[in-house]
């Protein structure tokens, strides 16, 4: 399962993809889930099979920038670090203690307890979203003050999961 953030024309978009067998993927974007396949056609091309049509996708990467062309349209996307995007992109201040969920789903497991010191990038909570599990990581080091995530409970985008003090 892979969770990514892309900045397109100043708006932050999130995508999830989990690889099924072969070239098939389960993808979630803009609140919709689709099963697609991506057949490589060389280093910078692949054939994207959507449920209702297929498209040739040309793509290239330059550092964090992704260039895409499909269906006659060009796109320039900036890939952003997921943890960074959640605390910085979505919720303003990087030092904001409340860490909010970047996606809706169900809390599978809580990995930290109040009072615990955590390192940057340390997994805090595992969330299941559309049958895809993903680790919610600490965007910075700190001390866990409060854990609001409850195992087995449904959560919404932006719902506070952990309060992390500097």
């Amino acid at each position: 399962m892979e969770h990514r953030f892309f900045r397109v024309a100043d708006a932050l978009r999130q995508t999830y993809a989990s690889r099924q067998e072969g070239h098939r993927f389960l993808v979630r974007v803009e609140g919709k889930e689709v099963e697609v396949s991506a057949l490589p056609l060389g280093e910078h091309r692949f054939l994207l099979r959507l449920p209702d049509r297929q498209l040739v996708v040309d793509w290239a990467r330059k550092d964090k920038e992704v260039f895409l062309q499909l269906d006659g349209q060009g796109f320039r996307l900036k890939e952003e670090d997921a943890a960074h995007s959640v605390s910085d992109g979505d919720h303003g201040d990087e030092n904001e203690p409340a860490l909010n969920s970047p996606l809706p789903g169900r809390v599978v497991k809580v990995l930290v307890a109040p009072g615990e010191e955590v390192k940057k990038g340390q997994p805090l909570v595992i969330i299941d979203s559309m049958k895809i599990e993903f680790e919610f990581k600490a965007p910075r080091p700190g001390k866990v003050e409060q854990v609001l995530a409850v195992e087995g409970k449904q959560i919404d985008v932006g719902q506070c999961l952990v309060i992390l003090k500097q």
Partner: protein
Amino acid sequence: MRGIKPIKKVLVANRGEIAVRIIRTLREMGIRSVAVYSEADAGASHVAAADEACLIGPAPSAESYLRIDRILEAAEKTGADAVHPGYGFLSENSAFSAAVSGAGMTFIGPCPKAIQALGNKLNSRELALKHGVPVIPAVTEDKDREAFRKAVRKMGYPVLIKAAAGGGGKGMRVVHKDEDLEPFLEMAKRESQKSFSSDQVFVEKYLVRPRHIEFQILADHHGSVIHLNERECSIQRRHQKIVEETPSPLITPELREEMGATAVRLASAVGYVNAGTVEFIVDEDGHYYLLEMNTRLQVEHPVTELVLGLDLVAEQIRIAEGRPLRFKKSPEPRGHALECRLYAEDPANGFLPSPGRIAWLHEPSGPWVRNDCGVRSGSEVSSFYDPMISKLIVWGEDRPAAVARMKRALRDYAILGVTTNRDYLLDIIGHEAFAKGELHTGFVEQHLHGWKPGQGSLEAALIAAAVLPASRPGLEAASGGAAPRHDPWLTVGDWGR
């Protein structure tokens, strides 16, 4: 009358797509080619295309592609017997034409006298007036500022300030009211000084919704001058053409004959030899006025080639060898041809150039699709030179067929890694006013003002982004930016990856 002197080896004093295009014709004619290049262009397509290549200096044009001495040195060293200047750079520099001839080589273009007579816009105006070629009413700058202002006012606003030595939109300003004349004049003079080393400007009547229509000329050393019909180049941004076509949707057979004869008359008047283009501006009522004559191959020459089925560079070479023209009048044109200029620039941001490395280039193909291109995957679009990437040219049996083919070819054309005007061109070609042939030089301001790239396929793009292979930071660093590029010989096992 002069004898025929076959050309055996041509130095191409240019770079990019036009150098590649000229070298291709040379190879087809069995003539050897010499490329010249700056330090920035060592790995460029035109260098690889030629039989030999000579380094002529550092990246800035003034120290390389504009250095007559170094280019002549390269020609001597390689034993070239002719020089093709392409367009831009030294192509309309009479001193260059003279220096090439002076060194005993053939200049594939007009003689210095003709370049001089037509190169300066004020000179060519006088020449035109003398030979009954209509010109736009104009006022030349006067030391007596009050008299000058009066004359401009009498002609009537809006007016256009132009550099006498100019071209390419530099030093041009539209003035709508009296109080703007003075400040805009100063700006135009400064721009002209910087671009052309001359601050001589003049003011002419600005036509509303004018069309740019030009006639291709061929003239030999035996006194024959013919025209090869028109090209319409009304789709422009910042006074530079971006879409060109032939035949013009505006021109009737009668108007074609009249304007063509006028163009031939002007070329004949200066004893013009080789290929040239007489540019006219045509108003809404079909009145036409001389804009200027370009004494070189035009960027948009391929549209003429496609409808006539001939190679203008080959004709230029035959003329330069002293051969008579192969026809007494233009071959009958067939169908319709369109050209789009692809630029590394941002149409959503004032057409700002967007230099950088092209990470992936996929050229369109198929019947009657031609892409004159000077770059490839991995090429750097350098900020030292014009940011044009290529010219996409298509032919169709009529205009709607050519338009449909151009749309398809533009859709198939992937240039990734720099911002380009590809999507913008697609929106021009797809516009209903374009389909109707309602063209004028203000077309893009009227129909595409405030343009932003479309987001229609954003959802599909996000799905594609979601499944992209993860980035490999090590590889990116090796192939991006200023870092040395991936060298296959360092990792032989990786070759073909």
